[in-house]
């Protein structure tokens, strides 16, 4: 349904945002027309009749002051709660969401599909599936913005920001960069192609990537000889990575942390920050040697290790106990 002067509503969330916006606009319109009407009526009713006419004695009534403080206050607080509800729904990712990576780089958007496909500016996604976007930037702050889905998340360098959407209509929608990022800020745009599931799969095959994210992650893992320490059979020199993803790990010097994307990225870029208990800080930093997409590929690879190693977790746990 397309309201005049409203962008297309391509997701359930879009309808909610439009609902609260319409509510706010109508309340403001009613209040505005009311005040302007009173202003015009008073303005005409009490026009100055003769040169030296003076207004009657000043008035003030505390009751009126309270009334027109409390009533706007209540309306605004109501608006606040409704808005907060929508905001948190948009912030909390449903567990079954499919994760895609979005990397902003000066004046282009780079997307990585879980299947390994890579795209620049144009983004193909399946309809009616919750899609989690992990957004980051390689240089300045960008902002991934799809007006039709009412979704916007800033790509801040050095941080993974997440948002999600579930398109309920197929079609092509605009993608913009909303945070000013330099000369071609206005050319950093693209098209979001929401397709039926089978069309999406056809598209995936049509643009068969050399290898999936996890596979290119594995290639990088070999290339940078991470395997020499992170071996799958012995955890003498470094923790075993199978099944480590999403698990809580004890840190050297106390404290526990969940091995999530941010921790893995930090351990690659600044290994000495949070060393796993029972190990020496011997890992060199890869700061400046790996691009953002390569780190994301390594993370996908480590995440895939977690799934493969489901059956062997006991063995791995046993091995890592000896290591301590």
């Amino acid at each position, binding site marked *: 349904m397309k309201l005049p002067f409203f962008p297309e509503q391509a997701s359930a969330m879009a309808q909610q945002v439009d609902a609260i916006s319409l509510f706010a606009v109508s309340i403001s319109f009613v209040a505005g027309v009311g005040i302007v009407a009173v202003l015009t009526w008073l303005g005409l009713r009490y026009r100055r009749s003769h040169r030296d006419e003076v207004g009657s004695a000043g008035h003030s009534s505390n009751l009126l002051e309270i009334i027109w403080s409390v009533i706007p206050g209540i309306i605004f607080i109501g608006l606040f709660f409704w808005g907060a509800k929508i905001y948190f729904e948009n912030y909390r990712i449903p567990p079954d969401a499919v994760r895609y990576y979005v990397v902003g780089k000066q004046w282009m958007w780079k997307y990585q599909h879980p299947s390994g496909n890579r795209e620049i500016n144009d983004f193909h996604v399946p309809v009616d599936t919750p899609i989690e976007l992990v957004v980051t930037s390689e240089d300045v702050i960008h902002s991934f913005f799809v007006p039709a889905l009412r979704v916007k998340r800033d790509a801040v360098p050095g941080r993974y920001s997440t948002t999600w959407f579930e398109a309920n209509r197929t079609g092509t929608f605009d993608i913009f960069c909303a945070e000013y990022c330099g000369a071609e800020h206005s050319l950093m745009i693209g098209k979001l192609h929401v397709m039926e599931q089978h069309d999406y799969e056809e598209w995936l095959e049509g643009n068969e990537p050399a290898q999936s994210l996890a596979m290119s992650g594995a290639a990088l893992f070999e290339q940078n000889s991470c395997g020499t320490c992170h071996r799958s059979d012995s955890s003498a020199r470094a923790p075993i990575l199978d099944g480590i993803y999403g698990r809580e790990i004890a840190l*050297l*010097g106390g404290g526990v942390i969940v091995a999530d994307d941010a921790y893995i990225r930090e351990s690659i870029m*600044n290994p*000495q*920050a949070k060393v796993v208990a029972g190990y*020496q800080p011997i890992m060199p930093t890869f*700061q400046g040697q790996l691009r953002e997409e390569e780190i994301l590929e390594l993370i996908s690879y480590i995440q895939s290790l977690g799934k493969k190693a489901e059956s062997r977790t006991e063995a791995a746990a046993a091995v890592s106990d000896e290591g301590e």
Partner: protein
Amino acid sequence: MSDSTGATTRLAHWYRSYEEQTESVTLGIWLFLVTEVMFFGGLFMAYTLYRSLNPEAFAAASHHLSIFLGTVNTAVLIGSSFTVVMAVWSAERGKQKSLVFWLGATIVLGLAFLGIKANEYAHKWHEGLVPGPDFVFHDTREGVHAAADPNRARMFFHLYFGMTGLHALHMIIGIGVFLTLMVNAIRGKYTRQWHDPIPVAGLYWHFVDLVWIFLFPLLYLIGRH
């Protein structure tokens, strides 16, 4: 304008009395100190946030600071606060000679502080700890499991030089002000009835001392055990 005693009165024509002028001037300096609190506040905010984001690196970096020199500096600055208080005390009683003495003492202690600070800076320069292309850092803490990341330790030194540098700049301005006050005091410009600049400069100096009172533990002491 000269009043009955021949000494030029310093009452600006738009004030109704000395009392009103002193109150205005004092209110003015206090409001200026509010801006200074917020000015240093921004830097303290950045420092505390970055300390909690990089605790290890900042602890490692602050080990390179000499606690001895920091403590001596704190004592020197508290001393100079004391001498300023004595200067204000003498000005209120019109004791010109003691006013000149205490102002001189404040200047000497101020210069002593800057001297020690310059020594510390030179020491850092030789150790290669001044952030810049040839910044070199190695973690000298013993019994620590992970050597701190030099990049983040460099952040400590940005803020260290930024904050102590800004503080030293305020010290230099303060010493300049006290020098002019001392010259005027020698010329007998300040009397029992009118000596506004002395307490005003005193308040400014006490503020600079307050900043150091917070800088010292934050930069030198935290994370030292």
